[in-house]
């Protein structure tokens, strides 16, 4: 999201109408994310209603109070009933982007080079002092959720990373240099997943965050030889991977209710395998459901519009 905000802010020029542009940007983001959320919401609510036999007043109450979840506002702190577990990040990022985008759009370089680093430094200092680690998902600090601050800090870090990636993109590297960049990026990703876990959680989190930021700057620049090889391939199947990852993130936690409730007697290895398979299949169904709904909507949207709206003259 930080990447697309940076790119949009960089691309646009001319007269500014920040309010409308910000709303339009968020509208596009919500338009991209919401189908995945809607699918996850419908499936998760249905599964939980069946499995836990939620009926009557409780069902109505849960559905009514989930309206803030549907509006993707639960990270604001409003009391909400949540059917989908993984959506807090979307809510936090959308709320954060409401503040970031106008400033990024109006003061792209100043924000990227001064404001974003300041925010990231303060965010890391705050988490380091208060928690000593980064894995915070819902603590209320009396004003906002700390997870909202975490997402806000994360997006600002993303903006810095993308600014660095833009700088790297404009540098001409030799073949050896490109290979070295690829090795650095891959080493960063691999070493994080190997070494990050050797110690208990703590201050080392922030070093790992720096590693992932560096690796991602190289990947985002496309300057490494591995990136260049990947980018030379047809994008179609990679676009599917990107869409599938979103579907998988939004939907896989729904499967926990099924596995925990109906397969609790299975041994742990089978439960894990079942959860993974169900998650992968559900995500696949989600991608194809959204694809065909979009095709249907593109075909019939004018018919639907004509039912409610007069044609403009």
């Amino acid at each position: 999201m930080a990447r697309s905000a940076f790119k949009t802010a960089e691309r646009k020029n001319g007269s500014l109408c920040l309010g409308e542009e910000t709303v339009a940007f968020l509208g596009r983001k919500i338009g991209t994310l919401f189908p995945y959320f809607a699918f996850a919401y419908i499936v998760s609510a249905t599964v939980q209603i069946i499995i836990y036999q939620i009926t009557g007043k409780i069902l109505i109450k849960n559905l009514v109070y989930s309206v803030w979840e549907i509006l993707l506002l639960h990270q604001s702190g409003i009391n909400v009933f949540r059917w989908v577990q993984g959506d807090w990040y979307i809510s936090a990022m959308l709320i954060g982007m409401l503040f970031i985008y106008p400033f990024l759009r109006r003061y792209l370089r100043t924000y990227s080079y001064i404001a974003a680093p300041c925010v990231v430094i303060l965010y890391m200092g705050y988490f380091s002092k208060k928690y000593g680690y980064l894995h915070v998902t819902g603590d209320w600090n009396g004003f906002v959720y700390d997870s909202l601050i975490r997402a806000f800090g994360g997006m600002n870090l993303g903006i810095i990373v993308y600014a660095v990636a833009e700088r790297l993109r404009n540098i001409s590297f030799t073949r050896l240099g490109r290979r070295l960049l690829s090795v650095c990026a891959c080493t960063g990703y691999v070493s994080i997943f190997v070494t990050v876990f050797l110690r208990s959680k703590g201050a080392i989190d922030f070093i790992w965050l720096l590693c992932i930021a560096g690796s991602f700057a190289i990947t985002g620049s496309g300057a490494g030889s591995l990136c260049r090889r990947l980018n030379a391939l047809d994008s179609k199947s990679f676009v599917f991977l990107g869409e599938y990852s979103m579907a998988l993130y939004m939907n896989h936690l729904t499967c926990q209710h099924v596995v925990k409730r109906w397969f609790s007697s299975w041994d742990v290895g089978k439960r894990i395998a079942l959860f993974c398979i169900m998650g992968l299949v559900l995500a696949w169904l989600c991608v194809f459901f959204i694809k065909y709904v979009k095709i249907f909507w593109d075909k019939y949207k004018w018919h639907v519009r004509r039912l409610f709206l007069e044609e403009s003259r």
Partner: protein
Amino acid sequence: MRKRNNAIDVLKFLFSLLILFYHAIYVISPDSVKIYPGGGYWRRIFLRGFGIFNGSFCF
């Protein structure tokens, strides 16, 4: 127009798979580390790694 960066899509996919596996271990059966020899190590692997990155790479 700038070409799409396929490497980012690959990264998104890998991170989403890793999050799936993390939740399989952590949410479905927190005691599942017992199936691994020296399970504490693996438990820390999944808890810490995914705790940091969470879902931010998936979209």
